[in-house]
């Protein structure tokens, strides 16, 4: 296992302290909740999809630094992307944090700060919680909570 500072890189700590897009979108077209029953982390992702583009995306909730920073960075990365592009980024992100490959070429560079998560298997669910909620919102336009279990 790596040291704590390899996991908690300064970008992660920054997004944990000052999460971006940490708000509700009142006229959201879709939203979904993510819940990790193991630790109680809970967040909601809001989406505004217009002309097959994610015009706006936000989140709110409580959780550990990894889940909060991951949600925050996710919102900054998927804004302006198509739902299909966002889904591909998640796949690539998921492969990286589960140790199935390094940061792929198609992964937005700033998500590479989560590469250290693969050394901490207990924290993979934290890093992917917001992404699961995003995918649920995109695929099902659902209102049911998604779980990482």
């Amino acid at each position, binding site marked *: 296992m*790596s040291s*704590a500072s390899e996991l908690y890189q300064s970008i992660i700590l920054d997004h944990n302290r000052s999460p971006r897009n940490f708000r509700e979108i009142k006229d959201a077209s879709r939203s979904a909740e993510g819940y990790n029953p193991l630790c109680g982390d809970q967040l909601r992702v809001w989406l505004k999809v217009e002309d097959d583009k994610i015009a706006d995306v936000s989140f709110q909730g409580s959780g550990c630094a990894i889940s909060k920073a991951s949600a925050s960075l996710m919102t900054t990365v998927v804004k302006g992307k198509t739902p299909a592009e966002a889904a591909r980024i998640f796949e690539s992100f998921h492969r990286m944090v589960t140790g199935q490959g390094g940061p792929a070429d198609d992964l937005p560079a700033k998500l590479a700060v989560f590469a250290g998560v693969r050394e901490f298997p207990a924290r993979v669910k*934290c890093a992917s919680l917001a992404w699961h909620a995003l995918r649920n919102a995109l695929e099902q336009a659902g209102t049911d909570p998604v779980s990482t279990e």
Partner: protein
Amino acid sequence: MSAAGARAEVVTPAPVGFDVARLRHEFPILRSHVNGHPLVYLDNAATAQKPRSVVEAEADFTLLGNANVHRGVHTLSQRATQAYDDARATLARFINAPDPAELIFTAGTTASLNLVAQSHGRTVLTPGDEILLTEMEHHSNIVPWQLLAGQVGAVVRAIPVTDAGALDLAAAARLIGPRTRIVAVAHVSNVLGTVNPVAELAGLAHAAGAVVVVDGAQAVPHLPVDVQALGADFYVASGHKMYGPTGVGFLWGRRALLEAMPPWLGGGGMIQQVSFDGTTYAPVPARFEAGTPPISQAIGMAAAARWLQALPWAEVEAHERDLLDYATALVSRVPGVRVVGTAPGKVSVLSFVLDGIHPHDVGTVLDTRGVAVRASHHCAQPLMRRLKTPGTVRASFAVYNTRAEAEALAEGLHEVRKVFG
């Protein structure tokens, strides 16, 4: 206070009369390394490590004495039956139960509580009856009662917990009423370490005609338990939290209550006669032990009880109290720490939160330094809601822990502060 300051405390001698270093020798895992650091195991309330004598008792039976119980005429089976019954008698003595036949082996505390709920509870409860729990219960002492309440139309209520983490006895007295049939309470809280006033609660419950179910999972590793002095009607615990094996626990109940209870699980070993016209059931305890029981685990659990009983208890209690006081003092000096659970007389369970830092992140940083703690809601979500925190970090100390390990915890927390600023 700095980490160096915390380290300076090493010179303070611990007031320990018995030899912890020698005791640690019985636990090979305590000499292991995790993530390049000596293991500092402070997750004992989740499961305790096992001494060699417990593992050997289990292994000896499995390698040299294995046979099924209550089944065969052959010698090995009779010996196994004897060993299993001896284990029952040992555990009955361990909790000062008047009669070994009142002690039923189960898969653990959870199974024991479900058995009481589904057999006793389902028989005696009628719609509108009340099951009284406390806000500090583990989910295993909540969910079985909720399932039961749904089945029989009963109501589940909870005795409130004070800000210090003690049970509000005045509120308990108000809540216990003519509809109260069952009062189910943890002897010791797995989050707060609070030792609940079971005898006082039992007095109130019995005056109202209710039975008292005591979850002793967190009590048996820390206190001598006397079910008769407590006034309990049922008392349950698990092997693995008292330095014994997983997969085994017990339910003790008063004989009259057990005898009035129908079987919960049906199968071999719990019957008198089976026919398609009707089946009659074995007397207690066999009635509640359907199927092949966890034989080697029961023998291991009894070995753990003997191991615990052989410890010098006055010194063990002084040692664990010292560890708790020392760790509480060190941890409290870390900026932003708030200790959760400050009831007087609590056992060596130290829960706390760090201002602005999620317990999970604290747990991960400590883990990189070999310090194992629990960081979560501890299967006590109603208590977390009461305390207005998503979770806590819990360092739970066992008899084999040392002051140096408390210092490693505190140093780790100073590192957490450094990482998170």
